[in-house]
């Protein structure tokens, strides 16, 4: 029988509501400056029907979501982009997770009736237009492409999405842009040139042994290893875009990415990385395994503290602490906590909103 995580989720949602900044945003750490990315992820986590997206929403959480959306709405630039935080007047990759939030909000009628505004549709359209026109990396000439192919063994005719306008594409922004775009209407968006090209980009950037890193599978002929953060976001993108026609190299890349995270999760000393791994794995693995990942994430190190030896001295450190049983957080970070809550919830509204 699957473990009941409802208490864990409730504690976590309360933590998010309690850790919101006065301006309505959330930071990478509690009390830290409000950034757009953690705010978007906190909202996605709270949109859960058990969080603040269903009936009988606790008032504090309702207010938190309302204020969070106001924070995002007011940060939008005229061109449809978002900076990384209020003082940043430049366009940034954080537009992608906001597009994701707006698409989920607009797609779920109940959610929209609680929190939506008529202008959200227009904001979403402008954001989508910016992501498609300015977020994607620019095309390169044949000479540059040939040089890049020789140095990095990647095909730069596949266009990904960048951290900032006009820059090269990288795996994490590409993955976030794909998810942000596809959730609007998966059946239609999966067939667009941009998304198909984005999938080719991700397959091309996969590390040969499995998984993804920033976007350099090779460096001057040598293999660069994958990292859990990029692999998690790439797998999220694949989860929203895989179709029956993907059998072959695309599925192979996904399987190898899943196997990499499956091997990594138990060795990690980082709550944040375990939350990322559990999130991606929960989207691809069978229920029994998912339960194990989630328990690992919630409990942290259950077999006692971890002992590190430094210069002959034993240092005890509970590196993987799991959920704080009083405050409901992970490492007192709204960002990590939001990811952990998305990993623990069975609700898939945020990837396939209906």
């Amino acid at each position, binding site marked *: 029988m699957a473990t009941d995580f409802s208490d864990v989720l409730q504690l976590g949602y309360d933590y998010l509501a309690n850790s919101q900044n006065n301006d309505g945003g959330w930071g*990478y750490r509690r009390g830290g*400056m409000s950034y757009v990315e953690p705010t978007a992820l906190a909202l996605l986590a709270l949109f859960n029907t058990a969080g603040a997206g269903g009936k009988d929403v606790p008032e504090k959480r309702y207010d938190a979501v309302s204020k969070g959306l106001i924070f995002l709405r007011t940060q939008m630039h005229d061109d449809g982009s978002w900076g*990384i935080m209020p003082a*940043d007047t430049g366009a940034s990759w954080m537009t992608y997770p906001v597009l994701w939030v707006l698409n989920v909000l607009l797609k779920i009628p109940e959610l929209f009736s609680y929190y939506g505004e008529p202008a959200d549709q227009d904001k979403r359209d402008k954001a989508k237009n910016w992501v498609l026109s300015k977020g994607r990396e620019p095309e390169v000439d044949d000479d540059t492409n040939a*040089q890049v192919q020789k140095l990095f*063994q990647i095909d730069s005719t596949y266009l990904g999405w960048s951290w900032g306008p006009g820059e*090269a594409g990288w795996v994490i922004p590409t993955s976030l842009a794909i998810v942000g775009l596809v959730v609007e209407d998966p059946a239609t968006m999966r067939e667009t040139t941009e998304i198909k090209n984005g999938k080719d980009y991700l397959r091309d950037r996969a590390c040969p042994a499995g998984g993804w890193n920033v976007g350099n599978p090779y460096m001057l002929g040598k293999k*660069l290893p994958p990292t859990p*953060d990029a692999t998690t976001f790439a797998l999220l993108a694949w989860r929203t875009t895989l179709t029956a026609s993907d059998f072959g190299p695309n599925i192979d890349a996904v399987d190898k990415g899943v196997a990499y995270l499956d091997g990594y999760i138990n060795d990690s000393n980082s709550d944040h990385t375990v939350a990322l791994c559990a999130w991606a794995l929960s989207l691809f693995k069978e229920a029994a395994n998912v339960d194990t990942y989630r328990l690992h994430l919630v409990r942290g190190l259950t077999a006692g503290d971890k002992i590190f030896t430094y210069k002959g001295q034993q240092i005890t450190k509970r590196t993987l602490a799991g959920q704080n049983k009083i405050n409901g957080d992970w490492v007192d970070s709204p960002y990590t906590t939001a990811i952990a809550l998305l990993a623990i919830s069975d609700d898939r509204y945020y990837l396939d909103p209906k």
Partner: protein
Amino acid sequence: MTLRTKPRKKKITRRQFTRLLLTGAIGGSVVVAELASRPLGLIKWIGVTFKRINRGFGSQSKVAIVNAPSYDVDLLTPLKTAWDLIDAPAITGKKVVIKPNIIYNLPDRAINTNASVIEAAIQLLQEKGAKEVVVAEGTAYQRDLTDLLYSGGIAPMLQMHGVPFVDLNHDDVVKVPSKGGYTGRDFTWMPRTIAEADLIVSMPKLKTHHWAGATLSMKNMYGIVPGVKYGWPKNNLHVTGIEANIVELYETIAPQLAIVDGITGMEEDGPLFGKNRNSQVLVVGTDLVAVDATCCRLMGIEPDSTRVKHIWYADWLGLGVMNQDKIKVVGVPINTVRQAYELPPNLDQELKRY
């Protein structure tokens, strides 16, 4: 009908012609000089030239080299020796940020600044009366560096000394005017921890670098800029010119001390895939240009305008000194510890190889 008389041609006198010629020549020269001195601009170029002339009469920069046979011996004593040999900065009552170089964890490769050297620096700075010592890094290849800190022994060591670690990639940020104007950026977003520090210590590893020739205390400043704004692997900074960015970040951040981990360095294909090379030294100084130039010579590399451009560039701009006759090496004579490191691959040749 009115007859219009043909206007008489005005004759230009010889004196007027000479004056015109002279004005044109001066104007043309200014335009040529302005273009030739870009990206600095003529006025700054004149300032730099005066700075260089003045420096010709100034004192030498001191760089200390001390023996340190391995990471398993007492490193505090040789570091104290080095400290006493240089004109060390005042530490008492200051908030000090140590910036090591932590990038990736590849088995058996000397990539990251070793925990033992960071530990010795912490002990020294605490002994010298620092009000607070913080270790901070913003790694370029992944967003969560917790596992890197554990695998390298840094996290347990910091715990043992009660020293906090700050992830610069996700810190609060502030807008800082860019000094120098070499990249076209008017300002740079900086982590608050860096902006509010009284003293910054750059602690790199002694390594070659396939793009920059060598990666030492100035190049180490790349790790300070926040990933949330500049992305991972902070490629935006490569696009606008590696040398220009290194020098601009150095001038803007203004670290006052360098402690280089040269116990085990990296030769050939640094900063990740090179071979380990034991140089068994620590290099310490307050003029980071002089420190880096000395480190290059320790590796058998002359930091000229072709091989390690950013050092030459920084010297030319008057940010420090590079020439041997301007550097007073104290401690161990450089000739006794110099080794011929294998040089990083020549990228032009690499392009032909693939």
